[in-house]
Structures are given as structure tokens and as C-alpha cells.
């Protein structure tokens, strides 16, 4: 029905158009072509003039209306150190082109109206004027020179890479269909190497874990940067072209698979400061930018105003497929202290997702940080046990002590916790402990009993070799008789395979 109606409308419209055409032709026949033409000259000359006035006013008024979204004006101030020079060049160009735009339009339409055809008037025969040609070649040439010099000056400064002695925070952004992955260098200040062949579900960037620089790199979900500190973004892509685009910072650079690019910039405005600018009030107390004082949820008068929720954004500016329009990440610019605190909370991707997993090439060593962390944790547990009056609290599982499968040999990494125990024993010279071995319920109970005792004995031997007197330690094997978890699940069984320490005398 709608289609039918639409077709009818189109047919009707066509008929009307054709009829208008025929009527005007008939009129031309009656009134004579010349007269018709002269009338048309008058009408359309006047229309040209009218158009010129309305158009020029329209451009100027609309520019005023949208001033707040123009570079440099209103709240659209560059939030980076280099952004000002680009905005300046933009406005210098706007100034010159604006003059040319207005003048040429006035001349074009004014002349069209002024010299509309009239019967009896003759056009001037004016084929050329070399002086004029020289003038209007020279003027644009001079203006262009000025713009080129200014533009290139800004360009070369903005695009220069960092020199090796500059203090710079380097972060990495990797575009993929359809999101940005961010990577920070961690404590060492260096980003680890990558190899796209290593990319898989748990290693989204293809980090090479044998490169120790990778181990402390972290991958936050927001781009957080300290204010007034130079940052070099290393920009890479995993699949197709993307473009790292920070509109508020005047930062834009393609991300190219196989060819890392970069952009160096210094954020100068924190998110909080920018919010304040957006929410600023005029002298009379009314908002400077009313659109930013609208509610984020128009239906909820309690909802925050738009400026209060403002965030800088990272977008993609190179067509990369069907999800191109939604590659958003929040960008937060914060004071240095807040940044340091934030970095302190971040966990390295390696530690959270790779450590001791299948891909971890460092399974058989402990890092200094882990040794320290474990020592601290162990000491903490010991001191809790010591201070408790409850007998059950005096038992500690030696959770990092393990054995080669089916044997009583200690694994190489067990010594770290045992060394912790040695120092505890040295710190408390009167302490007497019982070391007990436990197994899960698989296999023969008899041999489990034997194995557990042997394992506890190995621990005792190790401690003795480090100078702990043998009479301060007793050794027991409980086999599978004292499970702490159900043996029905593999996780429970793993918990049950353990070595325990019981403090008998403090």
C-alpha cells in the first residue's frame, strides 16, 4: 500500500513538473522570447544577490552558533602542549580564507546582478589584463608562502620523535578489530618485544615472554597519563589499518600492521580541569556552555550534569571494518601523584595471566619480587600462628613445598619457602616443630603413608642441612588419613597433597 502510494506520488509529481514546463513554454510563445529572457535576467539577478546575502549571513551566523565546536574557541581547546600551535594555524588559515571567501562571493554575485542582461546594453570587450593577472597570482602566492612556512614550522616540531636523552613515558596502543589494546612498560620503563606469531587467546599482543622486559608490562582498560609529562605512544595494529585518534589532544596517527608508528605529545589539562572548564559559569552565574550543563539522563533530575561525567576519548579514525565506529577507550589525565598511585595498583599481564601457565618459560625460577612476597606472607602467617592461643591455628601448610611426582625428592622451587622456615627457626631459637606429610586418596594407603613420611623427612633433612638442630623437629607421615578437603575433585586432592608444619613449642 505504501509502495503504491509512493509510486502514485512520484507519478503525480512528474506530471506537475511536466505541466509547469509546458505552461512556461506556452507563456514564452505568447510573450516573446526576448522579453521572457529579460525578465529572467532581472529575477535571477536579484535572486543571486539575495542568495549571496542570505548565504554569507548564514555562514557567519552558523559559525557563531557552532563556535563552541570549533578548534580553539569555546571549550574546544587543545588539551595538549602541541595542540595550540595547530589550532593557531587553523585560525590563521581561517582568517585569510575567510576574507577571500567573503570578498569573492560578494564580487561574483554582485557582478552577476549588476551585469544582468538588458536589451540594448553591450558587454565590455575585455579579453585580458596582464597587470591584473600578475597581481592576483602574486597575492595568493605570498599568502600561501606565509601559510606554508607557519604550517611546516608547526608540523616539524609536532612530528619530531623524542631524542634519547629526553625523559619520556612510552606506552603502546594496538588496534585490532574492534578495540584498542593498551600496554604500559611497568617498573623497568621499557616495553617488551612482540612477535605476531605468538598471538593467541591468552597472549593477545604476541608478547615474547622470554624477554624479561615483558614481564612487568601491564594492559589497563583505560589510557591513564600524568599531566605535563611527555608521552610517546607507540602505535601498532594487529590485523588491518586503524588510526589512533585523540580528538581533544590533536593526536592522530595510523596504526599499520608490520610497521610501528608513533606520536609524541604532552597532555596539559587533567580530566578534572577540563570538566571544570566545561562547567564554568559566566560572571552572572549562568553556565558558559549550557549544553554541558544538561543532565546526562534527561529523565532523571538527580543524574549528573554532562560536564561532570566528561571524559577524554580514544577513537579509531581509519576505516577498519564493520565495528570501526565503536573502538572507544576512555582517556584519563591525572596529576603525577594520582598517576603513580594508579600504576601501583596495576598488575602486570604476565603475572596475572601467564605466570605458571602453559606458556610461562620461567616456571622453574622465582623472581626476586615473588621471593620477597612469599617470605613476607610466610612470616606473616608464622607470626599470626605464634600470637594465637588456639591450637588449631598453630598448624601451617607449607604451600610452596612440593615434590617430584611419586617421589620424595623436593622440587627446586621448594627451597625458597624452606629457607623462609630456616630463618624463622633461627629467629625463634626455642621453637620446636612437627613436620607432617599428607597425600590424597589415590593409590595404596600403605605406600601413601610411607611416601608421606619420607617427604616430611626430606624437609627435615633440608632444614638440618641449613643448620637447624635435628632435635627441634619431629617427622610424621599421615598418608591419606587427614584430608583437609574432599578428595572427590582434583582441586581438593591437590589441597590434600601437602606438607604441614605444627608449632609445638614457641
Amino acid at each position, binding site marked *: 500500500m505504501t509502495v503504491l502510494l509512493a509510486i502514485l506520488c512520484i507519478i503525480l509529481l512528474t506530471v506537475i513538473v511536466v505541466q509547469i514546463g509546458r505552461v512556461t513554454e506556452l507563456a514564452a510563445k505568447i510573450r516573446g522570447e526576448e522579453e521572457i529572457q529579460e525578465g529572467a535576467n532581472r529575477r535571477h539577478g536579484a535572486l543571486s544577490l539575495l542568495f549571496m546575502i542570505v548565504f554569507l549571513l548564514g555562514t557567519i551566523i552558523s559559525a557563531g552558533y557552532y563556535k563552541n565546536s570549533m578548534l580553539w574557541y569555546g571549550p574546544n581547546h587543545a588539551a595538549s602542549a602541541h595542540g595550540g600551535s595547530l589550532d593557531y594555524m587553523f585560525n590563521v588559515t581561517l582568517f585569510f580564507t575567510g576574507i577571500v571567501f567573503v570578498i569573492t562571493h560578494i564580487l561574483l554575485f554582485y557582478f552577476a546582478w549588476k551585469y544582468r542582461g538588458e536589451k540594448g546594453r553591450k558587454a565590455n570587450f575585455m579579453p585580458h589584463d596582464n597587470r591584473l593577472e600578475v597581481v592576483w597570482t602574486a597575492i595568493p602566492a605570498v599568502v600561501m608562502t606565509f601559510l606554508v612556512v607557519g*604550517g611546516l614550522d608547526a608540523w616539524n616540531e609536532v612530528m619530531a620523535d623524542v631524542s634519547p636523552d629526553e625523559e619520556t613515558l612510552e606506552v603502546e596502543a594496538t588496534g585490532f578489530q574492534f578495540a584498542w589494546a593498551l600496554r604500559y612498560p611497568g617498573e623497568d620503563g621499557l616495553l617488551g618485544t612482540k612477535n605476531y606469531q605468538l598471538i593467541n587467546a591468552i597472549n593477545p599482543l604476541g608478547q615474547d615472554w622470554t624477554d624479561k622486559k615483558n614481564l612487568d608490562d601491564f594492559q589497563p582498560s583505560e589510557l591513564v597519563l600524568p599531566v605535563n609529562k611527555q608521552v610517546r605512544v607507540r602505535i601498532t595494529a594487529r590485523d588491518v589499518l586503524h588510526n589512533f585518534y585523540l580528538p*581533544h589532544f590533536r593526536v592522530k596517527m595510523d596504526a*599499520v600492521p608490520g610497521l610501528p608508528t608513533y606520536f609524541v605529545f604532552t597532555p596539559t589539562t587533567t580530566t578534572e580541569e577540563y570538566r571544570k572548564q566545561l562547567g564554568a559559569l559566566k560572571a552572572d552565574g549562568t553556565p558558559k556552555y549550557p549544553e554541558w550543563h544538561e543532565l546526562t539522563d534527561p529523565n532523571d533530575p538527580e543524574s549528573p550534569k554532562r560536564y561532570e561525567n566528561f571524559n577524554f576519548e580514544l577513537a579509531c579514525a581509519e576505516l577498519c571494518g564493520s565495528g570501526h565506529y565503536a573502538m572507544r577507550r576512555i582517556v584519563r589525565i591525572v596529576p603525577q601523584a594520582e598517576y603513580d598511585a594508579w600504576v601501583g595498583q596495576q598488575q602486570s599481564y604476565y603475572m596475572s595471566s601467564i605466570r605458571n601457565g602453559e606458556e610461562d618459560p620461567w616456571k622453574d625460577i622465582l623472581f626476586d619480587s615473588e621471593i620477597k612476597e612469599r617470605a613476607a606472607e610466610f612470616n606473616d602467617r608464622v607470626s599470626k600462628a605464634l600470637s594465637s592461643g588456639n591450637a588449631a591455628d598453630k598448624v601451617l601448610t607449607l604451600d610452596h613445598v612440593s615434590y617430584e611426582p611419586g617421589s620424595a625428592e623436593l622440587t627446586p622451587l621448594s627451597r625458597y619457602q624452606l629457607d623462609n622456615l630456616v630463618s624463622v627457626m633461627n629467629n625463634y631459637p626455642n621453637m620446636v616443630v612437627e613436620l607432617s606429610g599428607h597425600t590424597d586418596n589415590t593409590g595404596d594407603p600403605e605406600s601413601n603413608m610411607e611416601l608421606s613420611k619420607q617427604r616430611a623427612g626430606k624437609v627435615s633433612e633440608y632444614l638440618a642441612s641449613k643448620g637447624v638442630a635435628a632435635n627441634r623437629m619431629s617427622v610424621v607421615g599421615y598418608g591419606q588419613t587427614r584430608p583437609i578437603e574432599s578428595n572427590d575433585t582434583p582441586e581438593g586432592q591437590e589441597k590434600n597433597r601437602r606438607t604441614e608444619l605444627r608449632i609445638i613449642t614457641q
Partner: protein
Amino acid sequence: MANTAIKPVVTEEELLIEEYGYDDHFHEHHHGDKYQSNFITTYIFSQDHKIIAKQFLITGMFWAIIGALMSLVFRLQLGFPEENMAWLRPVLGKWITINDAGMGSLAPEFYYALVTMHGTILVFFVLTAGLSGTFSNLLIPLQIGARDMASPFLNMLSYWFFFLAGMIMFFSLFLSTGPFAGGWTAYPPLSALPQASSGSGAGMTLWILSLVFFVVSVLLGGINYITTVLNLRTKGMTMWRLPLTIWAFFVTAILGLLSFPVLVSGFLLLMFDRSMGTSFYLSEIFTGGQALDNVGGSPILYQHLFWFLGHPEVYIIILPAMGLVSEVLSVHSRKPIFGYKAMVYSILAIGFLSFIVWAHHMFMSGVNPFISNFFVIFTLIIAVPSAVKVFNWIATVYGGNIRFTAASLFAIGFVSMFISGGLTGIFLGNSAIDIQLHDTYFVVAHFHIVMGVAAFFGMFAGIYNWFPKMFGRFMNETLGKLHFWGTMIGAYAVFWPMHYLGMAGVPRRYYRFDSFEAFGQFSAMNQFITIAAIITFAFQVIFVVNFFYSIWKGKKMTTLNPWGATTLEWTTPINPGHGNWPGKIPTVQRWAYDYGKDGKEFISQVKPLEEGESETH
């Protein structure tokens, strides 16, 4: 035919041709009968340049309508993303997804396919083939005094390769995986990897195939235009007596001949990467869950090859429009074009410079920033010859006795559009400013105004002006003027606001804007643009109706030279047959712009200089 009954009086020009013309004994050879003997050889596989021009024009119009309708669909998405699009399902089928609540929405893949096809169709099929193909074919032989093109057969092939290219592209619209959707520039790796986008599969294969045939068409046409202009000018038609239209078509053809093959080489390497496992453009890619073997290629290489065509291409589009406008402005102002030689030199300068500015499309693509220095300089130098042209057009209007017709209005509109769009190019060509504006709506506004709308205006000026030469009838003037004002106001209403979007940083090629706070605050403006686009489209319907109605029912031409023009095409019969002039071919005695000289309204190019008269340019 009926109109041969009213045989016009023999004109002065015809007598002059009879007296001074050159007899090449053309009609004694009966060429005409040989290959215009039946309907098929006359109207379909025609080798007559005038018929081929009409074929290019009507095919171009078909594609313009398709391309414009596509833009309306994606404008609806951008202006009214929350509206129900289920009503489009009968046309777009599965690309309109219907949710449980019955809401239909445009699939993002297809949105991108529409954007891509809109660009490809408009740039290549409409503004290259439809514009240059139509008017180079129509006007080169007629205005230089030639019987036909140097090779009518290659000329015919040129059209049919274009037709084939169009067929293939049209077919690709109906693929189940969709047409190509990676942007008209087809940057790899997106265009090389079917895993990355469904349109990069069969859709991309057909896209490349179509454009390769298209390039064949352009090359066959171009070599013909160049040869014809260089070799078939009639006696007395020196290069400095050529109308500016011919200069423009000539330089356009040279640009096409030099740059399109580079595009094909770029496509060829892309085809190798797509189907033979080479790595010209591919390196270190992980897609579709696996790491590809390709290493060492560079996607930026493709961009260099593409834009080595891509930039001259925008001049391939705009130069013919400039030529047409120069001619129309001069004829209807009843004044010589101001600064003819300066106009020729600026065409040549623009043509030359267009080859050394391509990387200004790539400031932000990862090329060495140092290289950009050169491209900034050359790019901004182009502003100088462009400015010279604008000033000369304005000076042509100055002091004239302007006849306001649809053609002259569109020519004036062209100058306005070219100024508005050209000036924004000065922002974008300056790499420092381009950092912020690159790939935003500012760019969309810039190129649509300067090479989209402006080129269309040149084309409309040409169509209204030479329609009588093509069909022996006039288009309706009132409708033409209505068409002009609607389009002029509508086009500015569509594209002017986009500057503000771009300044606010809104990126182009976004399916919707509300995923970002910075881009999502312009929904009112986007609605306005969409409505303006629909209205502007409606005005184009008036043009199409006027065009086809006038072919059969328009006011008949009763004089040979209705606009009082000096150029040779108006010395041919109302319906010129094969060979254009029934007897001798004219001999040219003077330049093409003697309007208002010595108190005479105009002096035809076939008229010898009076005693004591000097050729004044």
C-alpha cells in the same frame, strides 16, 4: 524527421564554410552508410562520437541515481539511527536486520558497503565517465572541426568497456556476502583479507575486476581524445585558438593516461596478495584467529600507488567541469573569457602539480613526516593557479551582459562551490592542520563541495547548454532554473554544516556517533543534513524528468546557434549527421572568444579577420 521540414535560413556561418572551408571529400566515401546502416550500429554499437557521448551521459545518469539513492539510505541511518528501517527490507533484504520488537536497522556491514559503493560509483562512473566521457566525446570533434574521433572504433570500445565495468559492479551489489565495504580507496589489508570483512571476499574481486575494465575504458577514450586534439584540428585551429573546453579535456586525458595505469599496477599487486599468497601489502597480520605467513610487505605502498592516481583523479573530475564553465560563462556573459592564456597556463600548471601532491592524502598514514614537507609545499602551490582561475571567472562576469539561463546559473554556482570547497583545501593541505582534520567530516565537506557538487554543477551547465546540440531540442528553462536554485541551496545545506562536525573532530565513516561523547552531540545537525539531502535529491528528480521529457517533447531548436556562440559546433546542422558538417569542414580564422568585439554581439570562429582587425588575445 519533422524538424527537417522547417529548414532554417542558410546562415552566414554556413556560407563562410562553403566559401573558406576545407573539402576533405568526406561524404564521397560514404562512411556514414557503412557503419550507421541499421538500428544496432546507429544507436547501440555506434561509432559516432555524438551517440557515444549520449551513451556515456545516460549511463552516467543511471549511476548517479543509484549512487545518490545509496547516499540517502546511509544518510537516513546517520540522521535517524533510532528510526525503524523495516520498510526498506523489500529492497535491501537481509541487510535490514529486524529485532524482536519489529525494529529494522541497517546492518553495519551494509552501511559500509553503501558508503564504499557511493564513493566508487560517483568518482569513477559518474564524475569521470559521465562527465569527461560525455563532453570530451561530444565536444572535441565538434569544437575542433573534425569529422569524428581519431579512432571511432576504439571510441566505441571505450564505452562498452565502461558498460562492462558497470555491469560487473552492479552484479556485485547482489552478492550474498555483500559488495565491497572497505571504503572507495580500498586500502589493504582490509581489502585483501576476506576474514577481516565479508565484502572483501567476492565483492572485492568483482570491484577490482570492474575497475580494471573501467581503466581500459578510460585509456581507450583518453588516447583517442589526445590524438584527436593533436591531429584532427581543422585548418586554422591552432592550439591557442582552442576553446578552453578542449584544453581542459586534453589535459584531463593526459592526466588519465599517465595515472590510471599506476592504479592498475596497484590493483594487480593487490590481486596477487589476495589470491597468490604474495606479500606486497601484507605484513605481520593476525586475523580470523590465526597468524598469516605474510611478512615484509607494506600497506603504505598501496596508498602511494592508489593516490598517484587518486589525486590526479580529482583533477580529471574537475578540469572538464572548469572547461565547460569557462565556455558557458563566456557565452552567456557575452564577453570573452578573461585571461584566456592565463586560464590555459593554469590548467597546465594544475595538471602538472596534480602529479606531485599525492601524499597529502597520507600525512597521517605513517610515512616519514619529513617527506610531508614537500607535499605540503606543492599542494599549497596549487592554490595559486586555482585562485587565478577563480579571479578570471569573476572578471569574465564583470562588465558582461549576462543572460541568465539554467546553464549560466550553474556556471556561476560552480564558481561559488569551487571557491568554498577550494578554500577548505588550504586547511587540509597544510599537514599541521590536517593532523586534526584528517578523516573527519571536514574532509567530507571539502571534497563533496569542491569536486562533487562543483563537478556536478559543471556537468549540469554543460548539459543545459549543449542539450540542443545533442537532441535538437531545448530543456525547459523554468524547470532548469528551479533545479539550479534547489540544488544550490540544498547542496550547501547538506555540506556546509559538515565543516562544523569536522572541526569538532567527528570522524567520517562512522555507522553511528553515539558510542562517543565527543561525537554524539550533533544529532539535530545530522537530521538537518539528512532532510536537506532528501530535498536536494527531489530537485534532481525534476532534472531527470526535464531531461527525458525534453528529449522527445522539448521545445524544438529552430536556429543553428541559439546561444550566439562563436565555436564550431554551432555551425553544424540542427541534427548533425555522421561527419558533423554536411559539406566542407570549417576553416578557423580566429580564436574562440570574440564576444562583443568592435560592437558586434559575437564573431564566429569561421569568420575571417576584417581588414585591419587584429586578433586580440
